[in-house]
């Protein structure tokens, strides 16, 4: 062993700017030495000028487990990927102790980031010391300027991921504009809709349709209105009756318009009654109480809850179930989904609501986003599947691709 032959000088001493930061750090890197052992120390001296005065910046044991980092995951993630940068020693420096004033230190900074003063260099000298034998060895010296970087390359994976996904979505929206006949799978809940309307017609009872509690700015309400359009057309064809009590006064005229158009499309403009689509209340609990009243009085044969709901979902679904109506719900409100699933015959879960809307409306924006999301998910699924297999065979580098700093 090297112990008896004195200290062996480690290779590759370097002082450099820490990459990908705001210009307040420098790093000192050097390779491991064969004489790294407990008792052998590295001492780093720093100064603001080439000739000194030197002050001790750090003293680290060459084998201390947490005496100093020997890897900065952010800085070396790429190198670590290919296992080039193992066996390195590494120190991050933020300040140099003041040569005269005790307990004071000079922080490193990149002068240009503060817009005054010249850029500064900082000087460092590394020594290796073994106290038991009194050996001392200068490993190297050097200087560097901290630089405020404009681009953080450690975030490149995220950048590529974001840009790639954004490009995907934008492309799909453009393609959907050109050709709105993109394939979207059949949503089973929509078949159940026809069934429910058929039953309502047989029983001669109305159909109740709710739009949720949000305004027109919400995606779920938009989706809900496009489903309403299709439903109203079917109802017009079957010569059944629809009730739409509204919560939001802005949603009301839009619903009226949609239902009128649907009746027109079905060739039954005479059957359209505007008063069956009406404003009920703009107040959560009063709205629920009034809707419950309608359910108990008019006993609709089918209840549809599409859109965004809050705590009232429970009361609506309960009363509807008690009246024996067929209930179909669709919401992206994850906290309310359980209640709808437990109390309704069919439920469109989360994104299914958007998909149903895109499927029915053929709106390029909705359709394009849906397709973009789908392809994004496909990439994700493939990455997770392949990645897990690689990780299982101890090829850990895939995890580093997803590392965030």
């Amino acid at each position, binding site marked *: 062993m090297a112990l008896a032959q004195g200290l062996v000088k480690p290779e590759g001493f370097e002082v450099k700017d820490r990459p990908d930061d705001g210009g307040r750090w420098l790093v000192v890197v050097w390779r491991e030495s064969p004489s790294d052992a407990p008792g052998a120390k590295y001492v780093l001296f720093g100064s603001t000028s080439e000739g000194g005065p030197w002050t001790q910046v750090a003293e680290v044991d060459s084998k201390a487990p947490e005496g100093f980092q020997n890897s900065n995951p952010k800085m070396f993630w790429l190198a670590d990927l290919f296992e080039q940068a193992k066996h390195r020693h590494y120190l991050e420096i933020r300040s140099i102790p003041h040569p005269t004033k005790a307990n004071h230190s000079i922080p490193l900074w990149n002068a240009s980031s503060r817009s005054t003063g010249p850029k500064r260099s900082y000087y460092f000298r590394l020594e290796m010391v073994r106290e038991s034998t009194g050996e001392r060895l200068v490993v190297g010296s050097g200087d560097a300027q901290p630089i405020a970087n404009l681009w953080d390359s450690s*975030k490149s994976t995220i950048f590529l991921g974001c840009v790639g996904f954004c490009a995907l979505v934008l492309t799909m929206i453009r393609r959907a504009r050109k050709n709105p006949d993109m394939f979207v799978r059949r949503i089973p809940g929509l078949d159940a809709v026809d069934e429910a309307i058929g039953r309502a017609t047989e029983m001669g009872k109305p159909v109740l349709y709710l739009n949720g509690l949000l305004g027109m700015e919400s995606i779920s309400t938009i989706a809900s209105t496009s489903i309403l359009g299709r439903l109203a057309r079917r109802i017009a064809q079957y010569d059944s009756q629809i009730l739409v009590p509204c919560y939001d006064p802005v949603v009301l005229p839009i619903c009226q318009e949609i239902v009128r158009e649907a009746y027109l499309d079905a060739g039954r403009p005479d059957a359209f009654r505007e008063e069956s689509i009406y404003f009920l209340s703009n107040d959560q609990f009063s709205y629920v109480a009034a809707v419950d009243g309608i359910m108990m009085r008019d006993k609709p044969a089918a209840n549809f809850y599409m859109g965004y709901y809050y705590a009232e979902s429970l009361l609506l679904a*309960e009363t509807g179930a008690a009246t024996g109506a067929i209930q179909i719900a669709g919401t992206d409100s994850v906290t309310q989904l359980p209640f709808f699933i437990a109390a309704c015959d069919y439920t469109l879960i989360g994104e299914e609501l958007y998909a149903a809307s895109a499927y029915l409306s053929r709106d390029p924006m909705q359709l394009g*986003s849906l397709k973009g999301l789908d392809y994004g998910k496909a990439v994700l699924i493939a990455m997770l599947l392949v990645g897990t297999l690689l990780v299982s065979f101890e090829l850990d580098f895939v995890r580093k691709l997803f590392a965030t700093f």
Partner: protein
Amino acid sequence: MRFFKRTIPLALTFVIGVVFFLQPFSPHPFSGKLLELFSNWVAIVASVSLVLGLGSLFLVHLGKIRKQGAGWGYSAVLLSCFFWISVAGFWPMKVDDPQHEGQTIWKIGGDGVIESHYFWIYWNVYRPCGATMFSILGFFIASAAFRAFRARSLEATLLLVSAVIIMVGNIPWGFEWGGGLAGSLKGVNWLPDFTKAQTLGPDIRDWVLTVPNMAAKRAILFGVVLGGIATSLRIIFGIERSYLGGGRD
């Protein structure tokens, strides 16, 4: 006019959106400063907009009272309560605080929580109502449990079973009795060790939460995040314009 009404806001959204999409990729001090500055501005403008949003509620109810439509009396109640707390908010009062000795001050901070009219209303009117509102559902959930939550399909069955596991797992004595029973049977050595059953309920609950629940929630999260990014993107590129409000120009 279209330029002012449509082009400028869309351009503003685009420029700010792109800048703040790129901002986090730059570690330069300037980028941090930019974020700090804009964050403060947005916080200010957002709170002004919040104040105005509340103000528009006020206008809606004022209109209701003027028209004397159905339930205008309740609007009057609402508005008078609104004025009550607003006036109380500006009601100066004496507070024993060494910092402002003898001064009549308007005070929100510190420990003088109850000692102002404003907070008196908060604690005695707002807080009881707020706490009661959703506790009413505690009753309805029980009634729905009996009347509506049916195992009408395989899916609903699975849901209810999982819910029952969770509910039982959240009862501290869910399996304590089983454990106690097993403790008395300890002498019988051919039986399996039932004392472990004490934590069986919570253990199964934790497994359901950390394994299948976690997996499903993570997948939902992926969908939500990708959807959110797509929405942000549509906003930045002016494809989604609903935030601009109604009107066709």
